[in-house]
């Protein structure tokens, strides 16, 4: 019908891909957004690789003219946090020492709770869970002072075990919810079969339930590792001077008032503090998203 003498204008085959204004706008928006999200990281990175003179005179986004890793070394081993000048490495190792037991303890508690709450009939369990759930939303400030008093009274305040216990306490709501919801998805018949076979509470948990929990264990680990590593307020309040985690050390370095601010060292320290969660993020990929989606159920 619409064919003309040449016939070449006849619509045929794939629709010609017109580059529409909408499509351009879409990519423009996405690229601008990507720039917005990447810029701070980029600036941190290049700043940490420049000497101070270049920072003072040069362009904040420019690549370093004289590439130097000096700031990283300084940040790691000799930057000053208040009085001590031992670098952020101290904080790094503190964070590791806090992280490992806290993650294990909070996940273990969460898994057992979730299992007991979803598969066993216990009076008052719903009430317990309800309060726990509310606890997830209440700001730490409401609990902190009395907690400090309790820990001082017991005599563990400002110690490694203190901060580990605190992380376990405040990890309870999310971890319990996570595992409870996961175990609620396990067919009840499987559990009944195990009961009929004579399994008790712990046998069933260790032999049947735990081996099925790998996905949730991964998700919970991702969630807790990033959460505990990134914690500031609890570490500040409970860890004590000897065990301050990396976030607190970083904040002290950045806000330490001695001498001129060494931005390159600050940024190197910041990069170092971000390294662990970023590594978790990039390695875990889709699991990370799954983790926050599962954690979001709590929210």
């Amino acid at each position, binding site marked *: *019908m*619409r064919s003309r003498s040449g016939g070449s204008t*006849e619509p*045929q*085959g794939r*629709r010609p891909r017109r580059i529409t204004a909408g499509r351009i706008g879409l990519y423009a928006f996405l690229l601008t957004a990507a720039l917005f999200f990447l810029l701070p990281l980029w600036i941190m990175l290049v700043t940490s690789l420049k000497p101070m003179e270049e920072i003072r005179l040069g362009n904040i986004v420019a690549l370093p003219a004289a590439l130097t890793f000096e700031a990283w070394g300084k940040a790691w081993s000799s930057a000053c946090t208040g009085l001590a000048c031992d670098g952020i490495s101290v904080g790094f190792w503190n964070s590791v020492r806090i992280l490992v037991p806290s993650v294990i303890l909070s996940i273990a508690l969460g898994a057992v709770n979730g299992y007991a709450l979803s598969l066993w009939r216990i009076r008052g369990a719903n009430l317990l869970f309800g309060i726990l759930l509310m606890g997830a939303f209440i700001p730490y400030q409401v609990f902190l002072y009395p907690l400090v008093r309790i820990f001082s009274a017991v005599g563990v305040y400002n110690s490694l075990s203190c901060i580990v216990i605190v992380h376990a306490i405040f990890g309870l709501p999310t971890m319990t919810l996570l595992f409870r919801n996961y175990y609620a998805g396990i067919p009840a018949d499987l559990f009944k079969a195990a009961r009929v076979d004579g399994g008790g509470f712990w046998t069933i948990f260790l032999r049947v339930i735990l081996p099925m929990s790998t996905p949730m264990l991964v998700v919970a680990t991702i969630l807790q590792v990033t959460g505990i590593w990134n914690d500031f307020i609890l570490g500040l309040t409970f860890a004590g001077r000897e065990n301050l985690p990396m976030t607190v050390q970083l904040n002290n370095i950045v806000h330490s008032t001695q001498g001129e601010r060494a931005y390159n060292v600050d940024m190197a320290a910041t990069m170092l503090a971000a390294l662990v969660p970023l590594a978790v993020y990039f390695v875990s990929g889709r699991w990370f998203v799954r983790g926050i989606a599962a954690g979001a159920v709590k929210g």
Partner: protein
Amino acid sequence: MTAVSVRDVSIAFGMLRVFDGLSLDIEEGEFVVLLGPSGCGKSTLLNAIAGLLDVSAGQIWIDGRNVTWDEPKDRGIAMVFQSYALYPRMSVRENMSFGLRMARTPKAEIDRRVTQAADLLQITHLLDRRPDQLSGGQRQRVAIGRALVRDAGVFLFDEPLSNLDAKLRNELRVEIKRLHARLGKATMIYVTHDQVEAMTLADRIVVMKEQKVQQIGSPAEIYGRPSNLFVAGFIGSPQMNFVRGRLEAEGNRLAFAAGRHRLPLDAYAFSDRPEPGREVVLGVRPEHVEPGASGVWPGFTIDIVEPMGADTVVWCSDGTETIQVRTSGTRRVAPGEGLSLGLDAAQVSLFAADTGERL
């Protein structure tokens, strides 16, 4: 006049070519059913006709217009989906009128069309409900209603009934057939993998398998003269019986031979007379086998009897071949009885054993 014409169309998903040079002409007012097993490309073809999917070669014409590059809304089509695809949180009325409002149709006209379509589908009392307040059957009626108000010449259905239970499916099937009759000149293209729907609704059936059209024809043709082994086996329940054998010459006449069984083929309408000695498969529908005492194929014993009410399916065997026979439900038969089977060469199908094509 052709309403829809698919001309030499190829479709590819990235590197995966799904159709290669497929052509299909559909007449105005025709009810065409695309039938085939899952994954054979029925939805793909339908989406290409609707313009929801780009073809990589070829053309699509609707109502005398080349619409290959047109947007779905400009093709004069309406579509009904398996999952209903009703807009959630909009009332039935809003669902039906959304497209018209987008096209800035005058309000009075919208009201008229919605009222008319709702009337036709008996959903007037549901107009102010939301989809989640409707049953499955009602939802599908609304989805059909939404298609009707578009005043399209061509209606595309993608397995509209497969989410419904058996009873509703029968009800709505009849309704769709009635609708087609009422609308008169509306062309309908209907995708299904249910052969009952295909047989009952279609003017013409397009049987597909693995992205290839196997046969196009009226339900009677498809059922009576399947063009290959796949079509023969796919259509009909219980399935067509297949017996492997060879063609033998008896003078200048041909006969089918399998073991000690023979069937003279004088009455068989060969499309192209083959040479004797050829390996073939004989296909015969269960209702075309006459069980009795004096059939041409003696020596069968009844294995299992399946009474189905109106008729009874009898499985019988002679040790090598198992044949299903459909007889009247009133006939008394018992396992272990001896049978001989009567066959009529005019009602059987012969397929080449190597290619599976009808002879």
